[in-house]
C-alpha cells in the first residue's frame, strides 16, 4: 500500500476508535503498533513500543511535566486567584466593563503560574463570577471573559502544551516559553479590547464598578507580590540560564508549596491529595505521549512527511500558503478534538513539513498553541466553555458561546498578526544566550 493511503487509513481508524470512546492514548498506540507492524513486521513494532515506553518513562526532559503540574495544582489551592483578581480590579474596576477586563487580566496573571487553560478557567470562574454577578453583569459577557481569558493558560509560560510541543519537535522548552510571552500579552490586550467593544455597543451588559483610590490599589498590589515573584523567579531563571526547565519547575513547585503553606491553606491531607492528583494527571499525559509517539513512528516509517512534501511541491504552493492551510486544518480539528490530543496527533505530521519549508519551529509552536486556544472556545465542544458551564450551572452553553464570539474574533485577528509578523514570537527567544 502507498504511504498516503496507509497513513490516511490509520488516521481514520484513530478517529473512529476515539469517537467510540476508546481512550485516545490506546487508540493512537494501537493504530501505531498495527500500522508499523504491517510495514515492518509486528516483532519490530512491539519492540519499538517497548523501547519507547522505557525511554520516555525515564527521560530527564519530560520530568518537567509532573513538576509543573504540581506547581499549578498548588497554586490553585493557594487562593492566589482571588488576590490577583482583586489587584486587577483595583486598577480597572471603575471602567465600563471593568470587571470583565479585570477578569481577563487576572486570568493572564494566573496563567503565568499555571500551565493549564482548563485549570485557569476553573479557578478564575470561582473567583470572578460571583463578583460580576454582584455588579449585574450579563451572563454572556461574564462567562465569556472567563472562558476566553482562561485560554491564556497554555500560552503564557509555564505551559504544559508548550512542553509537549517542545518534546515532539526537539525544540528548546526555555525558548518556547519566552516565545509565548509577547503573544500572550497581545492576547490580554485584545481580549480587553473585545470587552470594550461589547460594552461600547451596550453599556448595560457590563456596568462600571466602584473606584479604588491609590492607597487601596497599593494594598492590593502588595497581596500579589509573592505570586509575581514566583513567576519572575521561575521564568526569569530559565531565561537567563540560571537553571533548566526541569529545575525551574522543581523550584517553582517548592515555591508554590511555601506560599500555599504560609497562606495557611495547606494541611497534610490537602498536600497528599494534590500530590496524588498531580501524579495521576502526569500519568494521563504520559499515556497519551506513549500512544502519540508510537503513532508518529508509524507515520514516519510509512514515509508520510516525504509524500506530503511531494504533494506541496506538485501544487507549487508557497510556504506561507501551506501554513495557512495547516492553520485552517487546526481550526477545523479544534471543533471536535480536545487540545492535548489535537497537538499530539498533528504536530508529528506538520512539524517536519514546516521545517522543510524553512520556517522556525518555535514560531510554528506558538501558532499551534494559539489555534489550540481558539479551539478551547469554539463550538460545539470548546472545552473551556464546558468548564464554565460546570461551575456556573444556571447559564446555558449557547449563552456562553454567544458571549464568546467577540473574543473568538479577537483571537483570529491575533492569529493573523502572529502569523504575518514572526518577530512577535521570536524576538524574546532571540535574546537568549
Amino acid at each position, binding site marked *: 500500500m502507498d504511504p498516503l493511503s496507509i497513513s490516511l487509513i490509520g488516521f481514520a481508524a484513530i478517529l473512529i476508535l476515539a469517537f467510540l470512546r476508546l481512550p485516545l492514548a490506546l487508540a493512537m498506540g494501537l493504530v501505531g503498533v498495527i500500522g508499523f507492524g504491517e510495514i515492518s513486521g509486528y516483532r519490530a513494532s512491539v519492540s519499538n513500543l517497548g523501547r519507547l515506553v*522505557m525511554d520516555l518513562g525515564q527521560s530527564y526532559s519530560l520530568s518537567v511535566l509532573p513538576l509543573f503540574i504540581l506547581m499549578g495544582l498548588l497554586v490553585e489551592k493557594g487562593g492566589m486567584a482571588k488576590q490577583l483578581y482583586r489587584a486587577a480590579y483595583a486598577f480597572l474596576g471603575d471602567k465600563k466593563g471593568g470587571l470583565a477586563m479585570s477578569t481577563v487580566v487576572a486570568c493572564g496573571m494566573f496563567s503565568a503560574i499555571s500551565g493549564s487553560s482548563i485549570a485557569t478557567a476553573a479557578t478564575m470562574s470561582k473567583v470572578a463570577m460571583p463578583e460580576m454577578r454582584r455588579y449585574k453583569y450579563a451572563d454572556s459577557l461574564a462567562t465569556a471573559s472567563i472562558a476566553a481569558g482562561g485560554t491564556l493558560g497554555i500560552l503564557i509560560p509555564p505551559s504544559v502544551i508548550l512542553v509537549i510541543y517542545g518534546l515532539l519537535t526537539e525544540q528548546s522548552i526555555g525558548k518556547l516559553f519566552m516565545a509565548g510571552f509577547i503573544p500572550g500579552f497581545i492576547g490580554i490586550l485584545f481580549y480587553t479590547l473585545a470587552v470594550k467593544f461589547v460594552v461600547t455597543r451596550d453599556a448595560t451588559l457590563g456596568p462600571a464598578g466602584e473606584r479604588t483610590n491609590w492607597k487601596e490599589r497599593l494594598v492590593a498590589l502588595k497581596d500579589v507580590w509573592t505570586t509575581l515573584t514566583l513567576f519572575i523567579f521561575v521564568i526569569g531563571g530559565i531565561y537567563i540560564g540560571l537553571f533548566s526547565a526541569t*529545575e525551574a519547575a522543581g523550584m517553582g513547585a517548592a515555591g508554590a508549596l511555601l506560599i500555599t503553606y504560609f497562606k495557611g491553606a495547606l494541611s497534610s491531607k490537602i498536600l497528599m491529595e494534590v500530590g*496524588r492528583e498531580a501524579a495521576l494527571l*502526569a500519568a494521563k499525559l504520559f499515556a497519551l505521549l506513549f500512544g502519540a509517539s508510537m503513532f508518529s513512528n508509524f507515520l514516519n516509517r510509512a514515509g508520510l512527511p516525504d509524500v506530503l512534501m511531494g504533494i506541496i511541491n506538485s501544487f507549487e504552493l508557497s510556504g506561507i500558503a501551506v501554513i495557512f492551510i495547516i492553520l485552517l486544518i487546526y481550526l477545523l480539528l479544534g471543533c471536535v478534538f480536545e487540545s492535548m490530543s489535537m497537538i499530539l496527533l498533528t504536530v508529528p505530521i506538520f512539524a517536519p513539513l514546516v521545517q522543510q519549508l524553512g520556517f522556525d519551529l518555535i514560531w510554528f509552536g506558538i501558532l499551534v498553541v494559539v489555534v489550540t486556544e481558539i479551539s478551547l472556545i469554539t463550538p460545539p*465542544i470548546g472545552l473551556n466553555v464546558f468548564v464554565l458551564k460546570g461551575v456556573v450551572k444556571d447559564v446555558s452553553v449557547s449563552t456562553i458561546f454567544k458571549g464568546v464570539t467577540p473574543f473568538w474574533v479577537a483571537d483570529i485577528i491575533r492569529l493573523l498578526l502572529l502569523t504575518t509578523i514572526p518577530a512577535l514570537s521570536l524576538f524574546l527567544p532571540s535574546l537568549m544566550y
Partner: protein
Amino acid sequence: MILFINTLERLALWVSRFISSLAALVLFGMVLVTCIDVVGRYFLNAPLYGGSEIVQVSMAGVIFLSLPVMFFRHEHIVVDLFPIFQKGYLGWILSIIFLTVSAYSLWIVADKTMFYAMRSLEDGDTYEYILMPSFISYGTSDFAPRFVVETFIALSLFFTSLLIGLRLLLVVLKPGLSAEASVQAN
C-alpha cells in the same frame, strides 16, 4: 463468587490508593532533589551528585506508580463527542471489547519491557552516577544496575494489565453498565 469479586475490588481500590500515595511522595521527593541540586550548585558550590539521574528514576516512579491506578479508575483522556457510546448495552459491549484489547496490549508491552530489563541485567548495564548501596554486592561495578528500575516499569505494566482485567470482570458482571459507570459505582 460475586462476594469474592467484590472483596477483590475493595482490595484493588485500597491498593491503588496506597500506591498513588506513594507516587505523591516520590513526586515531593523529586521537588526536594531538584531544589537541593540547584541550591547546592549556586550557594554551596556543591551540586547534588547525579541529581539528574535521581530525577529520571523518580519520574519513572511517579508515572509507573500512577499508571495502574489510572487504568483501574478508567481516568483517561477521551474524545467526548458522542456520549451515546457509553450508554446502556452499547456502552457495556464497547467497554468489554475495549477493556479486553487494553488488557491484552498492556500485557504484550509489559512482556517486551521485561525482556529489555532482563537483557540489561545480563549486559550489566548500570547508571553513570547513582552508586550501589555498599551493603549489597553485585557484579564488579560500583554503580547501581539499571534493570531494577526497568523491571519495576515492566511489573507496573503487568499489574496495570491485571487491574484492567479486574475492571473487565466487574463490567461483565453488571450488564448494561459501561466502564465509566462501573467506576462511578464505587
